[in-house]
């Protein structure tokens, strides 16, 4: 524990300040490399009627063009290891589901030659009505986005239907019947582009043995390795990943972006291939943080206890599932915030839209619900005319309290955190709130509605 509180030099700090850190685009190949560019869907939703790359292939400097037919396993799913079917094509087949979706990629002598080839590809689309507002996804006449339907259908945990993530705890009907007031709120945090200063980039260099050396800016080396191996149907010993130096990721470099197609082009041409996305491409086609739609209704008492919470969450996954079901699951675990609520009714759906697929960003699934919950706590305080710090401290998780999933918290820090926030904000708490600790509830802090859950928790290790 010598490191705690110590000022340690960053292991990569010197390289950063002298400009010697090697980001992917800084690597040079002795004989040079080919350059990749992608034909991307100009449409949010369309059927591909015709794609003709013959003219493009004849342009000077063009070495290879690949479409979905060239990918050994084109359709992949990030959750395949959990038994969820694959749903996302590496290159679009007969339809496109978001603007910017890759349809074909080319390797050429220069980026300009590659771009000229992209522009010479003939693409004919039959446009369809796109869907962006996930609140309309459940309407009978809503456009159908995904071949699974408009929402993810593979949850199916114990006591749970396949169509949603459910959390149930206590007796929600009794909580609402006993409430003095119901406080409702709708929260809609928007999509955010991670916007790393380093755009998506990869460099793939074939070795004489046939192994591919893949320089990647991924945040998730072994995961990306698995993605490339799956799509290209290669054993892992045919891939050597070089990475760990990421010019900003923030979650946006978890889903693989450039490696797989660069690798395919390198295999096809037997030459090194670099693919670096332009800033335009980064904004158009890289994944974003999801937009969310969160509805909360809380059963509260006039003196500031939260008896129960009903939540409906719609998580906009974009055109494909990727890791969104995992993000929604984390969201579900955290949806009571740092507070104890003994009666819970949560339904969450992963909903498809014609947006670019969405992904992790700094607290996958949790930041959205934390925003909603904390805003809602202040709303409750306002409705009841109670100090927002006191409302939070009263309902704060303490030893013996349980999460929505019934896990007993071994070391909750909510009380100390809120007291520290009050201190930092120059707010003076009433003496009984300033003296509060995380010790197990008793006396006025253990009202009858919290007694049952104190007996029913399970330990965090199961």
């Amino acid at each position, binding site marked *: 524990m010598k490191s705690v509180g110590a000022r340690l030099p960053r292991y990569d700090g010197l*390289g*950063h*300040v002298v400009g010697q850190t090697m980001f992917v685009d800084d690597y040079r190949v002795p004989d040079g490399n080919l350059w990749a560019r992608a034909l991307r869907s100009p449409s949010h939703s369309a059927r591909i009627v015709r794609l003709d790359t013959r003219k493009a292939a004849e342009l000077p400097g063009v070495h290879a063009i690949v479409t979905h037919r060239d990918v050994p396993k084109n359709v992949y799913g990030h959750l395949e290891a959990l038994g969820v079917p694959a749903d996302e094509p590496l290159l679009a087949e007969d339809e496109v589901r978001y603007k910017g979706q890759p349809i074909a990629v080319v390797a050429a002598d220069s980026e300009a030659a590659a771009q000229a080839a992209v522009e010479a590809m003939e693409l004919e689309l039959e446009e369809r009505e796109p869907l962006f507002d996930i609140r309309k996804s459940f309407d009978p006449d809503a456009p159908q986005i995904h071949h699974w339907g408009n929402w993810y259908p593979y949850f199916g945990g114990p006591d749970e239907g396949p169509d949603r993530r459910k959390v149930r705890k206590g007796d929600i009907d009794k909580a609402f019947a006993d409430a003095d007031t119901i406080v409702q709120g709708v929260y809609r945090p928007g999509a955010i582009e991670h916007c790393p*200063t380093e755009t998506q980039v990869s460099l793939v260099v074939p070795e004489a043995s046939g192994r591919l050396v893949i320089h990647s800016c991924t945040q998730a080396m072994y995961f990306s390795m698995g993605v490339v191996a799956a799509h290209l149907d290669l054993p892992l010993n045919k891939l050597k990943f070089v990475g760990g130096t990421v010019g900003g990721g923030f979650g946006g470099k978890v889903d693989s972006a450039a490696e797989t197609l660069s690798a395919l082009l390198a295999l096809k041409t037997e030459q090194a291939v670099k693919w670096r996305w332009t*800033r335009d491409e980064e904004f158009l086609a890289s994944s974003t943080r999801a937009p969310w739609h969160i509805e909360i209704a809380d059963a509260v008492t006039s003196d500031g206890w939260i008896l129960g919470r009903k939540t409906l969450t719609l998580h906009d996954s974009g055109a494909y599932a990727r890791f969104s079901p995992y993000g929604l699951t984390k969201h579900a675990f955290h949806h009571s915030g740092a507070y104890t609520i003994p009666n819970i009714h949560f339904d969450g759906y992963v909903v498809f839209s014609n947006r670019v697929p969405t992904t992790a960003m700094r607290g996958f699934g949790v930041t959205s619900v934390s925003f909603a919950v904390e805003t809602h706590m202040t709303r409750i305080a306002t409705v009841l005319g109670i100090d927002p710090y006191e409302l939070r401290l009263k309902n704060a998780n303490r030893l013996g309290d349980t999460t929505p999933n019934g896990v007993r918290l071994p*070391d909750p820090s909510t009380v100390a955190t809120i007291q520290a926030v009050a201190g930092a904000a120059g707010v003076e708490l009433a003496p009984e709130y300033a003296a509060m600790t995380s010790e197990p509830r008793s006396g006025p802090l253990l009202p009858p509605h919290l007694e049952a859950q104190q007996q029913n928790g399970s330990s965090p290790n199961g």
Partner: protein
Amino acid sequence: MRITVNGKLRELICDPLQPLLYLLREELDVTGPKAGCQQGSCGTCTVLVDGEPRRSCLLPSVLADGTEVTTIEGLGDAARLDTLQAAFHHYYGAQCGFCTPGMIMAAHALLERNPSPTRSEIQTALGGHICRCTGYVKILDAIEAVVRGETFDESDRTPHPDPAEHEVAMKGAPA
């Protein structure tokens, strides 16, 4: 064209409208300046042209003909850090490191012009530089330390501990 890069005279034939950034990176393999936004908004490509900070992604190479260009590689190396580089290292002014070369070059130009800027003047001078990791406070701290004349002795750092040296049982960890 003739261009002096980090003290070394280079003569080459190039597309006059090609941005200086690509001339440096692709033709001269000087990769310290980075392509960030590629449209002059983020500052990662900043180099000094005759001492003035310039967004090299927007500067046509022909306008750098006959000039002296300094990039991050021209300031110091790991064994002989420039004061600003030492300050950025000491004060953790780099997170992912991608914006760092541009930040340091802009700060260098500022201190050449005004050796004792206020924090607000530093903020203004670096206003067009984006650190998407949002490490701005540490960057400003590092530059202010240089302004104060601080020197950077790395001996106050705790070296990486030997993991075998201390065995501390973690509270609540499975045995």
